[in-house]
């Protein structure tokens, strides 16, 4: 009667994607929010090309951070509605499968968002990259996972607090500061072509490994904290 972790995780992701496709509530609001953020930032900052290469890292990641937090606030909402989370906890399935399933689902959602926002940024700021684009992709992939894995974990923690939507950014942002610093400097280095972002990429890789492990080990404790 036991299921492999991978199979269960895959089922979780499949279920989340199917549910999201059926209701599309998170997706629609996220897309619109992303567009709004890019437009507002464009009004707030109108730099020259050289300046924009220096600033874009910070701007882009601030925008992504906001969008990620908004997406993550919804990440457990579906499980809490109708109390499905209890049904999961009462089943013999390991909670880690639930956690990673959620993480991967959120990751895909946020990546989709970034794929839509990044070109918009490039258009509005007339931005081109001096450094290779594949390096940008790596920074984005690692950085997004760093935010999403901790975000999903803290969103689960926030379930048991009074002001759920506020607790998530409060908990997530301080912990994510090192990752954000690495993401921003890495992106800036690539855009300006100043030097190799290898240190930042390695740092992000290490950060992801360490915190994914920490989340894996502590998720069950946090889920059952009742």
């Amino acid at each position, binding site marked *: 009667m036991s299921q492999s972790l991978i199979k269960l995780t895959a089922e979780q992701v499949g279920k989340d994607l199917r549910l999201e496709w059926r209701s599309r509530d998170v997706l629609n609001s996220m897309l619109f929010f992303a567009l709004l953020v890019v437009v507002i930032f464009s009004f707030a900052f109108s730099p020259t090309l050289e300046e924009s290469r220096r600033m874009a890292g910070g701007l882009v990641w601030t925008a992504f951070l906001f969008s990620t937090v908004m997406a993550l606030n919804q990440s457990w909402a579906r499980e809490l509605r109708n109390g499905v989370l209890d049904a999961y906890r009462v089943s013999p399935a390991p909670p880690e499968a639930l956690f990673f399933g959620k993480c991967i689902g959120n990751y895909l959602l946020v990546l989709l968002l970034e794929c839509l926002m990044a070109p918009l940024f490039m258009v509005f700021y007339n931005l081109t990259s001096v450094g290779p684009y594949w390096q940008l992709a790596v920074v984005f992939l690692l950085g997004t996972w760093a935010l999403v894995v*901790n975000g999903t974990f803290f969103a689960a*923690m926030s379930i*048991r*607090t*009074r*002001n759920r939507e506020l*607790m998530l950014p*409060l*908990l997530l942002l*301080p*912990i994510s*500061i*090192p*990752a954000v*610093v*690495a993401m921003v*400097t890495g992106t800036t280095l690539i855009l300006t072509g100043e030097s190799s972002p290898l*240190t*930042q990429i390695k*740092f992000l890789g*290490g*950060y992801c490994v*360490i*915190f994914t492990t*920490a989340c894996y080990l*502590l998720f069950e*404790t*946090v889920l059952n*904290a*009742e």
Partner: protein
Amino acid sequence: MKSPFFYLLAIITLGLLAWGTYQALDVAPAEATMGDAQRIFYYHVPAATAASILFLANFVASIWFLWKRSPVADAIAVTGAEVGVVFFGVVLVSGPIWARYAWGTFWVWDARLTTSLILWLLYVSYLILRSSSETGSTSVLAAALAVFAAIDMPIVYMANRWFRTSHPQPMIGTDRLDPAMQKVLLWNMLAFCLFALLIAWFRFDLERTSQKINLLHIQKASKGAIAVVMPAVFLFIDPVREHMLQHRYMVFGYVAVWTIYIGYMLYLFAKLRRLHREADELEMT
């Protein structure tokens, strides 16, 4: 609580604080470049040391709690975090005051300062989590967050070291310290660490009392309140006042710092009064 050791500690702390402050203001030589404002250093650094010890206690207690689920561990964890945030708040307030005089600027984004700020933010978020979580899950969630915060600290330090090197690096450290200054620093270190211990002891007991809801414990706790206030009184001794008025920044520093300490102690007393009232209600039912 309130074993005789507590009162003994209070008296020793009072003595050491007075001695340490006298040393810092009178005996220690004035610094070559910074003059008297540098004397902030003698309570800035000890506060940082005390805070670090308290945060370490929080980390160890959190792991202990996750393993054994002991209420004592939880009490130590919250004490370490709360008193640590207060002492670290002192560091973050006295530092910029000193920096404004020494470097002309309140803040600089070098590795150490940035790490300190983030550390403080992490523990503030810890306290916010504790206060807004449902009863029953508070201790577990907070302990998990404490583990994350502890893992994050070395990472934050490394990130800041590697990625923010474009800023000027002013000399903060205690290297090349005059041996006379070193002695004064050590006296103050001892005094403030004991002061931190005193407040932490009080806070811990408050937490245990709150855990046990026993009127007798609360009555004992009220006798201890006076002892905690005592060290604050030394501020108004005459020889101290002479030296303080010499330098504005030092005054600001002292006022700000002791406002924080006294503010926190008042908060603890208010909490104690609330516990009194609750215990009274329980006795009546």
